[in-house]
């Protein structure tokens, strides 16, 4: 149930930002560290080191954060009511996954105004795999009245390393969820700040121009020569930092090295959107990023947060 004490503009079914704040609040109450977005371009919340790296090793971890996610290929010049090349994911990671994770998830839906006596919520098989991260897990896509609103995954492997204990990961597609609870058909019509009249700011007011400009950039203008060079540089830097930080039993630079892996992955996505990568090359680029991710994961296990003694 939505907290009745909330002022109108803070209701998650009236305001995009209130939805996000409600989820943050809910998971803060469950003991999560509420983080801010990672300050790099990523394709999904999973890339945040708070998920990828923290899922590795024996130490318990609970975190929740919003992550702006970039999918250059999904740009539609602001003309498609559902697809965006930049959107928000709300990411929750709980390690080890608690026994009542499904119940917690359902409570979070109630908190943002989904009445479980009225709506048909379903857990539909969806195995998750990220070839670039060398990661996979089993879980579901969560449906609300036939619409996928979240991904629910029990990580089995990340960076090619078995996860023990297993992390439970929840990913909410915030725009979709907001469109659902606000009853809006076009993402750009979402009420962003929950105000009405002259004070109202819509999602379109905030992001439409960006979607148009970035679609142009992603499909038409992005400097492919520079990007190809950036990919090579990031790959090289990643290896260099991994070597620099490697002190045998311990590693002292896993995080900076992993930043370069993230960088390479995003540059690859841009190149892919520009259509300059052939089918066969595509596979080899993915493998190259995966090699970086694996090496970073292995380095992470040799750090304090990764559980090294």
């Amino acid at each position, binding site marked *: 149930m939505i907290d009745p004490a909330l002022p109108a503009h803070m209701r998650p079914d009236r305001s995009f930002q209130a939805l996000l704040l409600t989820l943050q609040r809910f998971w803060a109450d469950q003991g999560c560290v509420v983080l801010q977005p990672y300050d790099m371009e990523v394709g999904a919340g999973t890339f945040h080191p708070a998920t990828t790296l923290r899922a590795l090793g024996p130490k318990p971890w609970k975190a929740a954060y919003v992550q702006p996610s970039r999918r250059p290929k999904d740009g539609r010049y602001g003309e498609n*009511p*559902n697809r965006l090349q930049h959107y928000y994911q709300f990411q929750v990671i709980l390690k*080890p*996954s*608690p*026994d009542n994770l*499904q119940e917690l998830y359902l409570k979070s839906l109630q908190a943002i105004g989904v*009445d*479980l*006596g*009225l*709506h*048909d*919520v*379903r*857990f*539909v*098989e969806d*195995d998750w795999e990220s070839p670039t991260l060398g990661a996979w*897990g*089993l*879980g*579901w896509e969560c449906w*609300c*009245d*036939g*619409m996928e609103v979240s991904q629910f995954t*029990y990580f*089995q492997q990340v960076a090619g390393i078995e996860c*023990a*204990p*297993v992390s*439970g990961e929840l990913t909410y597609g915030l725009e979709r969820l907001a469109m*659902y609870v606000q009853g809006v*058909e076009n993402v750009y019509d979402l009420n962003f700040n929950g105000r009405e009249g002259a004070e109202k700011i819509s999602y379109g007011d905030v992001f439409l121009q960006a979607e148009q400009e970035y679609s142009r950039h992603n499909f038409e203008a992005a400097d492919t020569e520079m990007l190809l060079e950036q990919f090579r540089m990031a790959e090289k830097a990643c290896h260099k930092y991994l070597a620099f930080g490697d002190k045998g039993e311990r590693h002292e630079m896993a995080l900076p090295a992993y930043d370069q892996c993230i960088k390479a992955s995003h540059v690859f996505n841009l190149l892919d959107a520009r259509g300059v990568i*052939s*089918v*066969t090359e595509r596979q080899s680029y993915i493998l190259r990023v995966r090699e970086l991710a694996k090496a970073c994961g292995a380095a992470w296990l040799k750090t304090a947060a990764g559980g090294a003694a």
Partner: protein
Amino acid sequence: MPDLLIELFSEEIPARMQAQAADGLKKLVTDALVERGLLYEGAKAFVTPRRLALAVHGLPGRQADQREEKKGPRVGAPEGAIAGFLKSAGLASLDQASVQSDPKKGDFYVAVVEKPGRPTPEVIADIIPAIIRGFPWPKSMRWGSGSLRWVRPLHSIVATFGAEGDEPEVVRFEVDGIVSSNVTYGHRFLAPAPITVKRLDDWMAKLEAAKVVVDRDRRKDIILNDAKDLALANGLELVEDEGLLDEVAGLVEWPVVLMGAFEERFLDIPDEVIRATIRANQKCFVLKNPATGRLANRFLLISNLVASDGGAAIVAGNERVIRARLSDAKFFWDTDRVNGLESRMPRFQSITFHEKLGSQAERIERIRRLAVEIAPKVGAQPALAEEAALYAKADLLTEVVGEFPELQGLMGRYYAQDENLPPEVAAACEEHYKPQGPGDRVPTAPVSIAVALADKIDTLVGFWAIDEKPTGSKDPYALRRAALGVIRIVLENGLRIRLWSILRNRAIEVLQTIKQLPFEEAIDSISALPPDIRTLKGVQAAEDELLFKFASSGLRLTVFGEAVKIADDLLSFFADRLKVHLREHGARHDLVDAVFALEGQDDLFLLVERMTALARFLETEDGKTLLAGYRRAVNILRIEEKKDGRAFTGPTNAALLKEPAEERLADAIEQVKRRVATAVAAEDFETAMTALADLRAPVDAFFDAVTVNDPDPALRENRLKLLDEIRAATRGIADFDRIGG
């Protein structure tokens, strides 16, 4: 007799795994019980999204006692042997063993080990945890800090054992911290509170009251009946879909069928696209208007909830999603038609068909040439076949097919119709994929046939050339299906096609793609190749000019040799597939072998005609007797040839034919040979068999009257040669050596 109830309660089990898991649990548990001497009367498994359960009915309360005799060493054996015996039998001293006498071995010790049967619950408590730990899920996972693997996190286990009327006991065991009990839970939203259960009937009734239908088949019945009723009440007809029904029955514990609608304007989209959209993404059923036979703008969704508003919010939510999906589909359908199929063709150049087999454009070009070559043989206009081959794959690059690959072909037809391409071309776009399986329809329109054969033959030759043949159960490129498709198209349409030279020429082309040899000029030289030439010498003999063309086009002669090998190998693959196909239709596979063993048999239709005539002949008295005579002749030949270390072949010497019976046989052979050859040349196999039948009497008479192994070596040799002539005469029809039975 007591019953066992097991329920494994977990998070949502993927729908596609449920039925198999239920069967698996039943088999594993009952097998384990029987193995431990616990026979049962019946067992039934249940599965819902959140539980996997099994009831085993009529078990004994405990295992029967067992008595085992263990033979030990003889009396007076060394101390070490005796000590070992006592240890293995679990005896404290020899006083506990008895002595038995054996006339041969003398006296020896025997230990009688009494093994009392254990109570059944104890046995079950051993069995179940092991089965849970090793359960064969297609994919399983770990969760939390545990090490147990299950399909999704396992939360609780019910295990009760007891006879009707009694309060059943809980079978106590523990798996990774989960302790068995008699407590389960109802529907996730409608009745989540814990429930204490006893036996099967109690468990079923209480769960039913807690809004869980545990029987999968019953959930399917409920869905199907409610869906039909709801459709009927609205004057519509349900489009039944067994696969979808199976899936949705695995997504709900308490099925509630609701009807939703979408805007009429979406009905401009082809029915198949609407259905694929609604089915694949939303797992909803579509409905037909019985008056028009077309889809109605309604759909049925299967919800898992009795909602407090009667389902209004659920319907509204699903309608929103379906509206968005259909908007996408309509957008795809509209955009696809703005730019014609032709505009997509250049893109095939940059799409790889297979890493080693070049681009889709190269493949389409090969199919085009082959379709043109085949067209006259199947009564199609080459120009139409060419156009059809060009467009047949174009829909692969449309948005709709990108979204719903299962609509490939069908969409090609729609788009071709929309562009006013010739109807034969539009039909071929769809039909060239057929037949998809043994039950699928075979194309009958000549243009469709030409493209269908070209497509399948190119696929087969291609994967043969890169050595990706099917092995065992592995056939990732569905090559068996392609070969069967060719066979059925040829046989069911009565087509007359010589396969070998087609296969050889295609192999040359494919090898050129693989080896990246210059293309265009070589094509001319291929089409100039005489069809049956199998060797390089043959090429040389054919024409010097041809050989020159070969060399100048860069087509290496080794390529030719490779192509011949591929064609031979592929033809025997066709023979194998034909055998399987004919056997499924009740034909004798030995006769396929007997006919295929002849040189140059690559006309499938003719081959089957010949085989059918042969089969009929072998059913007759003449046929049976002739086969017996043939075998007698061949046996004698084999023995004598071995004896002499030489073969007896070649014409007989007329001067040495002394007995009238051998003269008559020689005459008959000459005549029959000639008549068979004429009839076979005219493809009149019935007449050929009649001719062969005339051999029967002279053969019988020969064996009655003539001694083959005459003391005169010259006579003997001549008679053995005569026997070989019998063999030669039958060779016009088939290799009789390969006939079994």
